[in-house]
């Protein structure tokens, strides 16, 4: 199985640094999601891997061989770009078969592989149609099939679901995961949608401003992040992040929602910290968690099975997720008692963004609920 290693990859355009010394190993035969906000460098990194851009510095090792300056056509990498133009004068079958026909794959093999991909992507009945007869989602499925049927071990999917209907995205995510398992190939999947990243990823690469923030198995990155930026970028709804000041003992910190007991892992560089409290760390006092006080509802987003509740507490807005079943109808301005599950929230150094510890409890004295 083919492994990819990026070694010190940098890319600059005049004065602008798009990528800054990227060192990254991609797990073979897995689905790695590269996520980060627009402009973080994820697409540039992929374009360098494909060969559409040349790095300013560094090496890309593909099974141990440096391919950083190899022509794109010689790299065995499949690519599904964001928007995919199908040939209007060809049938769906011929569109999907096109890259294999260029690679001179025998006709019977082409037919078998198109059929396999069309089965997974639910487009078998469409193979004889022209692209103009397809809906937007059907075109995207055909496009994905075409990108995926190249003879390659590595496939790059560059935000393939962007702009599609929500329901279509839901089913295509499932189909793409099936597809990867069936092909046994390495998938590199680019997205800036945090929920899509979590749904798709086996491994997660978090990027920001041209740098790697954090890399690892998706559960580790979510539950055990080392960097504040990771918590800010990975998770839905967005994580609550509050400035905090450590006291002299380093066992407590003060935040806008009260004082919190903490344990530090390696000591603190400075008293200025940040506390990251995921929506699921905030709950109702009825659960037995430590009360934080009574806030005021500023918005309730109804997602169906759960509601995202925005609550203002001492000038800070906290976001929490509540199962819809457990929630009576709430109006803007209604009182909302809040509590925190200790053990979840993480403390970061403010200047560096590096993790320094965890919140352990909410002391009695800071409870006013």
């Amino acid at each position: 199985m083919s492994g990819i290693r990026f070694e010190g990859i940098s890319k600059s355009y005049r004065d602008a640094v798009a990528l800054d010394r990227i060192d990254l190993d991609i797990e073979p035969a897995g689905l790695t999601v590269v996520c980060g906000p627009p402009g973080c460098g994820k697409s540039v990194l992929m374009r360098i891997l494909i060969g559409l851009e040349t790095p300013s510095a560094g090496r890309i090792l593909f099974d141990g061989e440096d391919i950083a300056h190899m022509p794109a056509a010689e790299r065995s990498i499949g690519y599904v770009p964001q928007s995919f133009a199908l040939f209007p004068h060809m049938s769906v079958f011929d569109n999907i078969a096109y890259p294999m026909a260029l690679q001179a794959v025998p006709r019977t093999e082409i037919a078998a592989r198109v059929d396999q991909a069309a089965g997974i992507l639910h487009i078998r009945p469409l193979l004889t149609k022209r692209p103009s007869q397809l809906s937007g989602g059907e075109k995207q499925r055909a496009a994905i099939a075409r990108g995926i049927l190249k003879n390659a071990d590595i496939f790059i999917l560059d935000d393939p679901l962007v702009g599609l209907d929500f329901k279509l995205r839901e089913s295509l995510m499932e189909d793409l995961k099936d597809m990867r398992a069936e092909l046994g190939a390495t998938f590199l999947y680019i997205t800036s949608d945090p929920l899509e990243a979590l749904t798709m990823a086996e491994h997660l690469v978090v990027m920001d401003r041209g740098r790697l923030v954090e890399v690892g198995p998706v559960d580790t990155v979510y539950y055990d992040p080392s960097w504040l930026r990771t918590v800010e970028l990975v998770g839905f709804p967005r994580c609550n992040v509050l400035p905090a000041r450590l006291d002299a003992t380093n066992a407590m910190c003060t935040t806008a929602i009260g004082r919190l007991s903490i344990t530090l892992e390696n000591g603190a560089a400075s008293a200025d910290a940040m506390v990251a409290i995921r929506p699921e760390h905030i709950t109702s006092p009825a659960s037995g968690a430590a009360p934080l006080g009574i806030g005021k509802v500023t918005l309730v987003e109804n997602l169906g099975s759960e509601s995202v509740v925005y609550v203002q507490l001492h000038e800070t807005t906290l976001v929490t997720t509540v199962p819809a079943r457990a929630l009576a109808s709430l109006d803007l301005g209604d009182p909302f008692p809040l509590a925190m599950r200790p053990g979840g929230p993480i403390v970061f150094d403010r200047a560096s963004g590096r993790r320094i510890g965890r919140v352990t409890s909410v002391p009695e004295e800071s409870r006013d609920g």
Partner: protein
Amino acid sequence: MADVRVEGLRRQFGSLMAVKDVSFVFPEGAVTCLLGPSGCGKTTLLRMIAGLERPSAGTIRFGDRDVTTLAARRRDVAMVFQYPVMYRTLNVVENIELPLANDRTLTVAERRRRVDEAIEILELGDARRLHIDRLNLAARQKVAVGRAIARRAAVTLFDEPTTNVEVHAKLALIRAFKELRRHVRQTIVYVTHDQTEAMTLADQIALMREGEIVQCAPPRELYDQPNSEFGGWFLGNPGMNFLTVQPAEGSGFAVDGVPFPLAAPLLELEDVRFGIRPEYIRIAATPLPDSVPARVLRRAVAIGGQHLVTLAVGGSRIKAKVPPAEGPSRGAPEVGSNVFVVCPIEHAILFHRGKRLAELPRRLGSSAAAGAPS
């Protein structure tokens, strides 16, 4: 303010029926969201109400006024589009005020009051004297909302106003809309393809599919009590699970060969499916009453730290939501493990050829089943 009554409303584009003889009442003073996938006809329906699209057949009334053949400007409608339509040489106050200036029945004081009210609720105070060109897209869209509401038109229409706004600004816009609604009651028709937006904003949602309104209900009811498989599937992230039902030996029915011991009056029917939402499925390591064996195919972190678990049950796949928990596995079973799932019948809905069956089967041996016809 008036209700909107459409009757037998149709719009045909060549051989395509975009809106199929829709008869419906949009109640006075309520927010009705038209929700559906792209191409379902929701925008065409809205544009016919606005007077921007001519119906192929049918009538449109605002209260007792027939507006079917009236030009848009004579209908007394206010509209907010996907992109804010603004007077670029005017400032925020002037933009909101302009449509009011044409209304001779308004006093200057009342005009001012409405403008100030909109600006305050929409938190545009700091921008009141700024020219529209200085505002970003989201702020302009706020101005468009303020202008539409300040008019107090008979009917106010929204055509996917948040589509082009980035996520954070979208939340602010939704909050502003809700806040505005608490102060000013208007008859509002709001088109969106975003179910969260519809569920958050609407008094009632009219769910559309292929040119028809398939169900209309308040958001919670539409989610909990879909009258079709389409409704169960379309709402929810992910949507409802469906399992095919076969008659079982003796009493009850079976899903993929797995028996459900229920008194089931549906055995003569073909093509019956059992629908259950992911949040109601329970997963256990050992058999429970009414549980069926399953295998864990995938798990992923989902909304609010829940787990989305994909399971194989017989030949079908279902998805379950598991709440966040402490511990190394975080409360969710490992991929590849064999587990038992319970699909509680009290949260299930049975569908026959895609339509909801009125009668639910009852559990054998329970008190409810005692008097059930056999």
